[in-house]
């Protein structure tokens, strides 16, 4: 036991002496949290638009005023010719141009007038949303304009209600994702690199000839990383709650149980990677390209899985992070308990048993 303690101590020295790596490990999650929390907004506000008003009368002016005062748009360009429209789009000055036809007020008074909403659809989603904003405002205007009971004033009003995240803040979704990423990063990537480093430097041989059992060596090596990742995850949890008010609706116990299972999965992956790679470089490459990239991209962390082609959807199912993320969101945002996610938990346990068995076998094989 004393030897074991010394071993863990040595590992902690390694980690704390390499302050650049430590800075990245501790700084990255916090930086990301701040970016997701403050910088990345899903709501589109003050989008730059242009107006091409061929009529310039009191009605078009009223509509323009209404559009500008809505908060969704910022009028940056007055456009005078069709050629200018192209130019403004190409130079990225506007995302939308609203075109009023000639004699707008006059035509409207006689029945119908036309307005064109031209969107820069190089970003399709923004285009669609801005188009929706603009047409809503114009229709709304019409409702007020036709006081004399025309069809326009019977409007079915959609009453949206946003569940779990009323303000639609992206930080809600990213906090569980960040926790997954941190656990993966520290438990799997750092572990694989640290073990491979000992291998590369020849110090692993020295350890293996010591009276310590191989399993003890591995456990000794991974414990500091485990502590570091738990600390890291806790920091994100506390900061997200203190600064951004991200809720934690479910039970801490459920969270702890599932998290420990997931950490064991991640450690298993890390050990398996270390047994198949000869150099730190390889370990790092496998971990970054084969582990972190899929975790970030395909687990539903940033991009919704339902939108992906079926092949990628299928692939996302063999990524442990996908399952953990589902559970984490259910606990934190929805406040659900095991009754709802026992299947996902079983899948995770399956991953854990499989990976730890493989890791144990692989490591023993290396000894003989």
């Amino acid at each position, binding site marked *: 036991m004393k030897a074991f303690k010394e071993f863990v101590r040595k590992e902690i020295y390694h980690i704390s002496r390499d302050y650049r790596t430590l800075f990245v490990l501790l700084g990255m999650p916090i930086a990301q949290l701040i970016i997701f929390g403050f910088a990345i907004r899903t709501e589109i506000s003050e989008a730059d638009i242009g107006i091409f008003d061929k009529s310039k009368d009191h009605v078009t002016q009223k509509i323009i005023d209404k559009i500008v005062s809505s908060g969704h748009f910022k009028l940056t360009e007055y456009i005078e010719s069709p050629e200018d429209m192209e130019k403004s789009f190409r130079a990225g000055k506007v995302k939308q141009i609203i075109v009023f036809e000639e004699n707008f007020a006059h035509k409207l008074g006689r*029945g119908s007038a036309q307005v064109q909403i031209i969107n820069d659809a190089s970003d399709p989603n923004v285009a669609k949303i801005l188009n929706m904003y603009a047409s*809503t405002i114009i229709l709304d205007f019409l409702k007020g304009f036709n006081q004399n009971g025309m069809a326009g004033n019977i409007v079915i009003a959609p009453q949206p209600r946003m569940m779990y995240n009323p303000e639609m803040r992206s930080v809600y979704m990213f906090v569980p994702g960040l926790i997954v990423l941190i656990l993966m990063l520290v438990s799997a990537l750092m572990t694989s690199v640290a073990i491979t480093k000992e291998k590369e430097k020849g110090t692993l041989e020295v350890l293996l000839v010591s009276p310590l059992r191989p399993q003890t060596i591995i456990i000794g090596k991974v414990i500091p990383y485990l502590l570091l990742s738990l600390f890291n995850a806790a920091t994100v949890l506390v900061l997200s709650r203190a600064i951004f008010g991200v809720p934690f609706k479910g039970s801490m116990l459920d969270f702890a149980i599932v998290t420990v299972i997931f950490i064991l999965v991640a450690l298993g992956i890390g050990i398996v990677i270390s047994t198949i790679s000869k150099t730190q470089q390889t370990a790092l490459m496998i971990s970054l390209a084969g582990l972190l990239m899929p975790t970030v991209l395909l687990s539903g962390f940033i991009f919704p899985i339902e939108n992906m082609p079926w092949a990628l959807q299928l692939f996302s199912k063999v990524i442990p992070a996908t399952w953990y993320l589902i559970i984490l969101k259910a606990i934190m945002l929805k406040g659900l308990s095991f009754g709802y996610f026992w299947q996902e938990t079983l899948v995770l346990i399956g991953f854990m048993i499989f990976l730890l068995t493989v890791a144990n076998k692989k490591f023993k094989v290396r000894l003989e």
Partner: protein
Amino acid sequence: MRNIRHIVKKEFTQLRRNKQMLQIIIVLPLIQLLILVNATTFELKDVTMIVSDLDKSATSGRLVERFTASGYFIITGSTESAEHAAKGIDSSKAKMILIIPNGFERDIYGKLSPDVQLIINAEDGSAAGLIQSYASAIIMDFNQSIVRKIMRIPEPEINQGIEIRDRYWYNEELDYKFYMAPGILAILVTIIGLFLASMSIVREKEIGTIEQLNVTPIRKHEFIIGKLLPFWIIGLAELAFGLIIIKLLYDVPFEGSILLLFGMAALYLIVVLTIGLLISTTSETQQQSMFIAWFIMVIFLLMSGLFTPIDSMPGWAQVLAVLNPIAHFVEILRRILLKGAGPSEVQAQFFILLAYAVVTTFLSTWRYRKVSG
């Protein structure tokens, strides 16, 4: 000049020998453009929805039909119990619940405005926003046409009011891949350039050859140019490779001048490579430099407007975006490829990148020293 050639030759020989690196250089663009472009889609389709039609009238049926006919929504359940509907969202069976109130049809005939409730799972805020706008668009459409028909307003009067025509320029089909593919190309060029450059010096440091090079009469600028030139060539080759892939796979339009595109990429790569070099000269081990390069890249990427528009970021983040070379390159690629922007329409980005290149080149050469203090 001759010395530069010797270093370039050596770098290429070493690269040729490094099978793993070669694989990465060739496979990475393929994987990125195949997987990333498909994975990073915020395109909305097949949104699962539970219908709670409490009115059960012909009109409410028509509204529901509008949703299914749009192609964006699929109904995965229908219930009259609010509790059941809520459970559907809890268990992720549906993203949205559409609740049509009792008396919906009656209200319409009575010229009252009935409310329709949309309950949306907003864990993912941006998807929720998009679902809301699609659903609202459908309801608005319903307002304009169906209601009028129900009320039997005579033909000429259908045109009463303002006729709104919407146009989607540069991407009529609203194909999300057109938007993402140029962005992923920007990531590709950045990753390759940044990682190769950030490993360059520190690798020689670790294996010890840097000392040997430092006692040779080779000049500082020769060494740096010789080291970076191969990566610069590789970066441009990757860009060409990537352009071919996105044309073949996704048929992304190339509206603008490819020459202009490569010119801008050449400048951008200088910025990326010198940043990588700076990381490399300040790190002690390859592991460190890789972590730092990765850290910087993730931060730059998230703030680059690749996934979320810079316009809707807060003021300070928009200021930071001006300092973010990736943001400019993403914008350049999209502008030239999709909108056919000419030199005058990317000149602002050009000057910013130029200034950046001057500063980072100066910093990285200043930081690299043949003689230590």
